[in-house]
């Protein structure tokens, strides 16, 4: 009967031999746990000193620290697996891991695990369905050229093998541009991913606040960045630069500002297209993320989110746009004539003024590197040794490309970015649905944030940027894909709930 009804048949009965082996394996797992606890009891303190240093804040010489971590990780995994069970598959869990990994550079291997998860889903579903509806993006050509451009650095570095590890993990970021369009085939996928990203971003703002509280309590700055970037001198004293779950406050400001402005754009959709609860969620997301951007003390983040916030109403509300524009111009003139604008600029400029001033110096070095080797640049990471006695990184993404990869890199990366922008504009002008138009404009705002900040920091190899590119590619391909998804079988990833 079961065969006739085509109900799934699971192998649930084990014979006695298999059951015995299964039981022994479980006991062995228990033995391993106790073995771990015992060795943790002996070596825990030594390992803590080796890994965390001699005097870490708040976590110093905790006995059985490894066992505590094992229990915490176990509980977390139980929670995640429970979520997967509750949602019916591992799709949402893996998507959530990706969303969190884009907002949390400090969690090791999370991104790679999510990519492995996606790969498993694709292969598993593909094998079972005997097909893998994989849409290959045409941007894969640019991907190949990017790898080639990067690989030229091997010819220029005296120790080429040292570049391999960098190339390997940066290549995994590029995978997002190919992987996401294959998985995110509907607006529902995009909305789900964005919701997860927004929640993860809000979580990192919570981490920022916790960092501030811990720093205030301990008297020393507790963030994930190095001491060179973890504080800023202001007329009001030294203020910590909070990083959330990223390693650098500028990166944190970039991810928060990008997602925040996208949330703002989505929250201002016309009435009837959005329910009140979701609108409040998106707008609250913008407020929280904007706050998080401010407390990173990243001036480039302030500038970019301010510019984008001013532009969003201008584009969203066409009817009042002229009056809005006039008001903006009036306010600007008022600020200029009263001197408030200049005074504000001076205050902001003087915040770590030396940091702003030294960037022009290192930008000069980068330009000189570009003009010295204009075709292929001096190689990625080689600017540190190019007449650069203080080993300063170039704080400009455009110059990073130019100096590191030369004209070839400019053509490849510039071409990729330009092509993406043009295709997004095409979606705006020829949308398959208003939702995709909204998505395209939101992504253009997000890329604008990064474009502005790229004048002041390096974002080329931040996985969040490539995540945004992957999402952009998904939107573009969804917009151009005329196929209508009807049944759950049309979705290899995150099928609709039955």
């Amino acid at each position, binding site marked *: 009967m079961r065969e006739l009804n085509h109900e799934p048949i699971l192998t649930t009965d084990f014979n006695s031999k298999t059951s015995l082996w299964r039981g022994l394996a479980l006991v062995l*797992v228990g033995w391993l*746990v*106790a073995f771990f606890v015992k060795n943790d009891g002996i070596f825990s303190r030594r390992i803590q000193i080796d890994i965390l240093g*001699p005097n870490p804040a708040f976590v110093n*010489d905790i006995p059985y620290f490894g066992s505590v971590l094992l229990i915490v990780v176990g509980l977390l995994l139980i929670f995640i697996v429970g979520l997967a*069970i509750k949602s019916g598959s591992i799709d949402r869990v893996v998507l959530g891991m990706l969303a969190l990994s884009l907002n949390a550079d400090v969690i090791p291997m999370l991104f790679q695990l999510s990519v492995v998860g996606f790969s498993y889903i694709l292969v598993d579903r593909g094998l079972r369905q005997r097909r893998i509806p994989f849409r290959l993006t045409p941007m894969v050509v640019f991907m190949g050229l990017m790898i080639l451009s990067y690989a030229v650095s091997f010819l220029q570095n005296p120790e080429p093998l040292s570049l391999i590890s960098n190339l390997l993990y940066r290549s995994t970021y590029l995978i997002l541009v190919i992987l996401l369009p294959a998985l995110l085939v509907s607006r529902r996928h995009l909305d789900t991913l964005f919701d997860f990203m927004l929640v993860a971003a809000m979580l990192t703002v919570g981490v920022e606040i916790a960092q501030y509280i811990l720093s205030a309590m301990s008297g020393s700055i507790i963030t994930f960045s190095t001491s060179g970037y973890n504080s800023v001198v202001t007329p009001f004293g030294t203020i910590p630069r909070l990083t959330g779950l990223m390693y650098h406050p500028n990166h944190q400001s970039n991810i928060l500002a990008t997602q925040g402005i996208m949330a703002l754009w989505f929250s201002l959709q016309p009435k009837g297209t959005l329910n009140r609860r979701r609108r409040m969620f998106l707008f609250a997301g913008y407020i929280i993320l904007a706050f998080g951007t401010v407390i990173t003390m990243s001036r480039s983040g302030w500038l970019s989110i301010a510019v984008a916030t001013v532009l969003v109403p201008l584009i969203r509300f066409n009817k009042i746009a002229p009056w809005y524009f006039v008001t903006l111009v009036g306010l600007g003139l008022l600020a200029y004539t009263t001197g408030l604008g200049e005074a504000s600029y001076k205050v902001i400029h003087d915040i770590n003024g030396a940091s702003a001033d030294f960037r022009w110096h290192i930008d000069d070095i980068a330009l000189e590197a570009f003009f010295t080797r204009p075709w292929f640049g001096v190689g990625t990471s080689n600017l540190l040794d190019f007449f650069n006695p203080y080993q300063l990184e170039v704080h400009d993404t455009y110059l990073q490309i130019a100096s590191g990869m030369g004209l070839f890199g400019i053509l490849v990366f510039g071409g990729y970015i330009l092509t993406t922008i043009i295709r997004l504009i095409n979606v705006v002008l020829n949308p398959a649905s208003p939702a995709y138009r909204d998505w395209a404009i939101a992504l253009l705002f997000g890329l604008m944030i990064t474009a502005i900040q790229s004048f002041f920091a390096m974002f080329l190899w931040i996985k969040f940027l490539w995540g945004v590119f992957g999402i952009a590619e998904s939107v573009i391909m969804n917009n151009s894909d005329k196929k209508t998804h009807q049944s759950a079988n049309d979705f290899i990833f995150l099928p609709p709930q039955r």
Partner: protein
Amino acid sequence: MNDVSSIVFAIYSRRLMVMLVLLGSVGTGIFYTQQTPSEYLSVAKILIPATSPTVSLKTEGGNIPNGPIVPDQNEDLRVGVIGIIRSGAVHDRVAKALPGINPKTIRKNVIGDIGSDSFLHVLAYAKTQEEAAMLANAFSEAFQDEMQAILESSPRRTLESFIAREPMAWQQFSQYSTELVSYLEGANFTDLEVEAVNMLAQRQAVQRQIEALELQHSSNLAQRPVYKQLFESRPEFIVTGQLLSENSVYKSSLERSSKLATELALKKLELTDKHPEIVRLTNELSMVQARMSQQAEMTHSSSTMSQDPQALSFMQRMVEIDIAEASYDSQKAIFEKTASQLDSKLQSVPAYRADVSLINAQITQARHHAEDISARRAELEFHLTHGLRFTMSNEYTKALPEKALALPTPIGIMIFSTLAGLIVGILAAVVSELVKQMRLRSPY
């Protein structure tokens, strides 16, 4: 229905799985508790002050290096101290002190840490309490010796250089002193300043005399024609004396007028002004008075003439002027010669002064330098004799065998084995449920 209760049910349905994992974990935990303690941990503490001791008691010149250079006494120092420990230098010292223990064992089983009490903790692991305590204390001593050696290395090198340089510094001072004496002898001075002041005063006096001489010469030249003119305008002889006697006519007239005046006055008492007697007396009186006025009171009897004293004085003055003018040229020549001699001497004084100042400055500097080196040498010898040990430990911070911690603790093993075993068992159950669900959703 995939809600929490179904997950709990799934775990419950796999309770055998959870129990097996828990059994394995707890059973192994009990076994390990019977084996404990497998090691002992002993902790010795060392206090590293925030500031290092300074050696110099006074400031030194720019040529002399400052006090001993020590690592910066802040958190970085503590990290630096951990680095020193990790480098193995202290372990090697301990190995030399404890030849019976394998150096590799010492390296593996002794580590440094910073406790929440800000002490440097020396953690020593060993199979017995006594061994652990001994290792910890030996390491603590060796570490303090190493820090002392590090702290003293720079002062010792400095001391060696001072010992080498001290005689050279004093010799230099002597050289400069001798040079000054020779110089002064060659310049024929004993005390340049005093002699220069004297020469200057003398020169000023000579100059004043020259000016006075010039003034006198100018005055003489102006005065002589005037005196000459005055002399020529005066007579050679002048009356110097005259003898006068009394006039007799005048005298008799005077007597007569007195009589007449008296008689007139008496008559006016009896008679009027128009009476002829009165008129007669009045007329006679006036005639006598007129006669008196015509006569001088004294008459010249004789006079004396002599040479004009004024002319004589003029002449004398002219002679003096001539005499003075005669000696003017010679005096002036002498004064000018004296002045030029003084000038030539004074011209060389600035050069001498500069040279002497330079030599004096060199002497002063050399003396200060030599004195500083001598003082620093004495200072360093004093401190190095006593030893520069700035870390602190006492009997309360030493490791004691009876206080060695047994590792692992039985209760810790039991608690964490049980908890971790339970969690891992539950995890295995939920993962099994997830795999089942994934298989169920696969289309056939």
